[in-house]
């Protein structure tokens, strides 16, 4: 990423929670993400939608600096993400870790406070109280002492969300938080998203379930290697744009949506 090059953003644009410009990622020879540029508004819930292999998670990871980009610039509140780490909260895919790790739910949530603790600092009583509060917010306070492998998939997802809350961030990235969760968890997540929005935080969510997009998100970003469309849900989440994103593979889409485009 070109940190040394002069920023391509003007100052007014730079203050946005997230500005992505010309972001490209390639794993082997083939780019998995090509020249993606967009800018999100503060206090919005943004859904990233696209078919499998469209580069949704890749884009999120590249924006977070977890994988190298071959070109492009990512600014968080006007500065490179490296300087803004404390403003960013991250919920990775649940399958990305081994849940048999010897630790309990509260301990995982405490990891969200590590960023503030410094190199040798240990979590103190107030950090633990804060972590417990975060667990409470996702309805998991009673499971604080539970070994994490003994939690259901949905409960594990909520622990990950609580950990992100403990980061006290302003901009959240969530990689498929709704994947394979039960109804109670789905409801807990959506309540939480609404609360984050109320607090003026910005949340970017990789999402799979097209049926709930209009209900959950203020804006959607349609992605299939390249950016297909980005904007307010009502204008962007249309039959025509979806068909383009999914390459005409969406014949089964809800008929009622057809008259909206």
């Amino acid at each position, binding site marked *: 990423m070109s940190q040394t090059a002069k920023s391509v953003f003007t100052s007014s644009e730079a203050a946005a929670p997230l500005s992505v410009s010309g972001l490209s990622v390639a794993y082997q020879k083939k780019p998995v993400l090509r020249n993606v540029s967009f800018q999100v508004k503060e206090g919005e819930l943004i859904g990233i939608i696209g078919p499998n292999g469209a580069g949704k998670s890749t884009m999120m990871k590249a924006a977070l600096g977890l994988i190298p980009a071959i070109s492009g610039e990512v600014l968080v509140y006007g500065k490179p993400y*490296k300087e803004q780490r404390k403003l960013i909260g991250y919920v990775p895919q649940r399958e*990305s*870790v081994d849940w048999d*790790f010897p*630790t*309990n739910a509260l301990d995982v949530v405490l*990891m969200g406070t590590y960023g503030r603790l410094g190199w040798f600092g240990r979590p103190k009583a107030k950090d633990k109280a804060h972590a417990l509060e975060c667990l409470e917010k996702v309805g998991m306070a009673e499971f604080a002492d539970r070994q994490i492998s003994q939690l259901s998939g949905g409960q594990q997802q909520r622990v990950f969300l609580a950990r992100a809350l403990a980061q006290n961030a302003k901009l959240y990235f969530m990689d498929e938080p709704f994947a394979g969760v039960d109804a109670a968890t789905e409801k807990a997540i959506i309540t939480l998203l609404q609360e984050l929005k109320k607090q003026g935080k910005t949340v970017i969510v990789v999402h799979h379930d097209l049926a709930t997009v209009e209900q959950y998100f203020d804006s959607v970003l349609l992605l299939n290697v390249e950016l297909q469309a980005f904007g307010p849900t009502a204008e962007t989440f249309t039959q025509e744009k979806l068909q383009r994103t999914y390459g005409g593979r969406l014949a089964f889409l809800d008929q009622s949506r057809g008259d909206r485009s």
Partner: protein
Amino acid sequence: MKNFMEMMADPNMQWIFFGCMLLGLSSGVIGSFSYLRKQSLVGDTLAHAALPGICIAFMLTGIKSIGVFLIGAGIAGVIATFGIGYITRHSRLKQDAALGIVLSTFFGLGIVLLTFIQHGAYGNQAGLDKFLFGQAAAMVGSDVVTMSIISVSLVTICTLLFKQFKLISFDPGFAKGIGYPVAFLEQLLMLLIVVAVVVGIQAVGVVLIAALLITPAVSARYWTNRLGIMVALSGLFGALSGALGTWISSSVSNLPTGPVTVLAATAFFLLSILFGPQRGLIAKRLLRLRVKKRYMMEGELRAERMKGETAL
């Protein structure tokens, strides 16, 4: 069997006893992290890679000392680590294959060098092979002092960086996200494994040292669901294995300390896999029986109730 007090009366045995305990402790502690990172075999590879490193260090200096060997083994370990990393990144091979290639290459090279040394004009070479394949009885006071300093530093680093090591073991992506230098921490863990290996070589040898990195950690996992306790227990199991190994081998004539230490660690593992609460085989069996019994009883009650209802 000689009794414990008798053994401890011999000052030389005291050194060996403490040396083996420290070795077990430090490899148990560091081994916990490599086990949780699913890199148990990395320790084995680094141990085998240490062999040519030590041979070259000896050829260059002509000295047999832990300090010199540590440098040689450390450099060889770093090269081996990069080798593994390079192969997994630039080929379609998975890590197990890469480990196998690097392990056998380094070990082969080490054996070649060792033979070369033994047939060459190296005056002081006597006993180098015993050193490399483990001979605790050859340890002297100064070795144990070096081992103590190294072990204490190793355990201190693991205590200070416990939070970091925990997070990169559980969720490296998240660790990177909050700005931890994950690559640096991973290299540091690798380096600590090399250190533990070199400390252990004299007592158990390059081939068996991997057992002390893996077995105590696996055993400890059976007893607890908390990482801190697991690391401490693993260190304890390692230290006890070292102590038992020294004691048993000193009481029965002609038993080698290193292999007995490894067997002691295996005994702890067997106890753990059987008697560990929740995860142990017996605990699991009992739980299954309990659940089955309760289900059967409920079934009987249901059947009786049904019978009662139809009778009405």
